[in-house]
């Protein structure tokens, strides 16, 4: 009897213990919303010659401008290790770094330069990435952006957009009634700008095809607005269509076969879609108000556009198959020039909040929650364009009387100006991924 009781007790005990073995779960719902701290240590140079570019500095700037990272200032670094065995993780930990990036440049037999770079997790004290990029000596900037892309992807899981390009239009007043307009292309950070098209007549609304091989824009070179397509590799241009009245605001469909555009040939601006293969034109909007600035949703099934049909400019979405129209923006008395992130979740736009006296700012709306965040404190922001990975919005604004380019991370944490160029800068457009 006693034994039986003991056995039962033992069995109960086992039961209790096995119940207790179920792992304890702790839940963490709050944290510090802060960019990831990262130290980009100056890369070593084993090439025997001074290098034309500071690769680590470019990487550091790229990562910092993405808004995702808070790079450590070089002046604060205790040492400049270039090899993993020289990293004293404790020092970096004390400096509150989460990651440390090291690298070195080496000369190859064929005259090229090999950039070896490593990403180390300071807190886990382990290497997360060790790769190399080989490049020509005069192309170190591309190599640096590529390094930044690889690091960014490893750290965030998002594809880096540092090797992408932007295009924008500059206008210079050369003399009375003499202007020079240029369509320019630059690295995403504004460096290495080059001219694609130069004209004495205005150039407007440049836009990239989704494969990054060509641009569409509006040019007044014939005296009236016409839409052109220009192939980047060859420089070949073609005029797509010209109708009486306004021809503007072209936008490539994701598959590259269609072009959305705005025509005023029927009286007031309406959105049309042009099939580039059949040259067939399809009218999309039909309203007495102004419908303009069309943009495709990433899935190509709908268009968003700006319309003042509600009495003030707001952004609407039209389903191309069902023709269902939906108003997207309700906050503020002016929302225009909407652009969607590639995941379709966020809408960046020019926004003016109600109450009067407010200028135009860049705002982002979460289409899931309809929360609107104003990202800038600029009075004259316009033409937002989103990086393909959705991290940064580039836009045009006024600095004094001069138009400049600026950018803001999608969360508003990081804002920066693009390098100054001669003349007014307007209408930036961010390329898709180019590789």
């Amino acid at each position, binding site marked *: 009897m006693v034994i039986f009781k003991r056995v039962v007790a033992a069995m109960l005990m086992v039961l209790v*213990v096995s119940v*207790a*073995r179920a*792992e*304890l*779960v*702790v*839940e*963490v*719902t*709050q*944290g*510090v*919303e*802060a*960019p*990831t*701290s990262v130290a980009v240590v100056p890369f070593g140079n084993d090439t025997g010659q001074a290098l034309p570019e500071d690769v680590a500095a470019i990487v550091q700037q790229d990562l910092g401008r993405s*808004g*995702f990272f808070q790079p450590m200032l070089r002046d604060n670094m205790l040492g400049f290790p270039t090899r993993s065995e020289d990293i004293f993780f404790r020092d970096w930990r004390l400096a509150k770094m*989460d990651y440390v990036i090291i690298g070195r440049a080496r000369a190859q037999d064929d005259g090229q330069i090999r950039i070896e770079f490593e990403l180390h*997790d300071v*807190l*886990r004290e382990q290497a997360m990435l060790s790769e190399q990029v080989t490049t020509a000596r005069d192309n170190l900037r591309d190599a640096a952006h590529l390094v930044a892309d690889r690091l960014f992807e*490893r*750290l*965030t*899981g*998002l594809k880096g957009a540092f090797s992408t390009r932007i295009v924008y239009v500059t206008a210079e007043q050369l003399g009375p009634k003499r202007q020079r307009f240029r369509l320019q292309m630059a690295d995403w950070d504004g460096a290495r700008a080059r001219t694609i098209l130069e004209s004495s007549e205005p150039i407007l609304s440049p836009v990239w095809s989704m494969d990054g091989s060509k641009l569409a824009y509006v040019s007044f070179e014939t005296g009236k607005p016409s839409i052109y397509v220009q192939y980047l590799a060859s420089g070949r241009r073609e005029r797509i269509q010209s109708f009486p009245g306004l021809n503007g605001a072209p936008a490539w469909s994701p598959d590259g076969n269609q072009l959305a555009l705005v025509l005023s040939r029927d009286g007031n601006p309406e959105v049309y879609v042009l099939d580039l293969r059949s040259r067939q034109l399809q009218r999309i909007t039909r309203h007495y108000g102004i419908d303009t600035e069309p943009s495709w949703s990433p899935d190509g099934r709908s268009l968003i556009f700006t319309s003042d049909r509600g009495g003030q400019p707001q952004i609407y979405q039209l389903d191309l198959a069902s023709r269902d129209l939906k108003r997207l923006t309700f906050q503020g008395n002016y929302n225009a020039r909407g652009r969607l992130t590639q995941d379709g*979740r*966020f809408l960046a736009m020019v926004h003016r909040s109600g109450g009067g006296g407010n200028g135009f700012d860049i705002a982002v709306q*979460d289409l*899931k*929650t309809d*929360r609107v*965040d104003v990202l800038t404190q600029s009075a004259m922001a316009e033409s937002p364009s989103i990086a393909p990975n959705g*991290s940064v919005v580039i836009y045009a604004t006024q600095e004094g009387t001069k138009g400049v380019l600026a950018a803001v*991370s*999608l*969360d508003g*944490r990081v804002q920066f100006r693009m390098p100054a160029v001669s003349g007014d800068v307007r209408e930036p457009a961010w390329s898709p991924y180019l590789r």
Partner: protein
Amino acid sequence: METRSYIIPFILALGVHAGALVLLGTHWVDQEATPQRMTPRHIEAQMIDLTALAQRQAEKERAAREQARAEEQARAAERRRMQQAEDKRRQALERRKAKAEAERKAKAEAERERRQALARQREAEQKRKAEEAAKRKAAAEEQKRKAQEQARREAAEAKRKAEAAARAEAERQRQQARADAELERALARERQAREAAARRASESVVGDMQSYITSMLQDSWRIPSTARNGMEAVVAIHFLPSGEVDQAYIHTSSGNAAFDNSAVQAVYRVKVFPRFSQVDPVLFERRLRKLLVKFRPEGLRW
């Protein structure tokens, strides 16, 4: 209350044992003493000295007689040589002398007889005494046997009493055992209650540790820009008893690399959770050595 009934039988048993010991002990002493006292008397009774004395005396007398006879002969030869005439007187003297001699001889003989008789008498006396001693010894033995018998009887009695006491003791022990079992059950109930209380206490400790870990991790978690409300990563943490993080790794991914990294890094950023060292080691082993931490941001902008 139970101890009183225990003492009385014990004292009784002690008394019985002590009595038996006293009785047996005195007899033992007597028996030891008697033969020791008897033995020297028995040896004195042997008395070979007396016989030796008688023989010595006889020897002396014989030597004296021998000398007297030699002197007589010398005197007779003198007398014969000097006086023949005196033969008659000498003969008469001789006859007188012979008569005296005979009388003396008879007297000596009688004396010897008497001494012998005395020796015999003494021997008999000795024998009688020996017999008496034997008889006494037999009596003592009988007494001893009787004492032994008595001791046996008393021992048996003591044994019987002891057995009775043992039975009483066994009965008492059975009752005690029943009482003990009852007590045991009561204790077990109490123990279970205590264990339940301890379980509640460990639950409370575990709860405390949960909030402690949560607060430590909330301070150390750098939520990356890619984080969105509704993302969820589960990190498994293995602790050392000191509270140091042995290892932490993604148990269930959020699908976002930066988010997963930030969760694991939050753990490594804390590195040591000092309050673990204050937790009971058994509880630590059972509940806290391995934990799952769910990182699920709330109230993010997106």
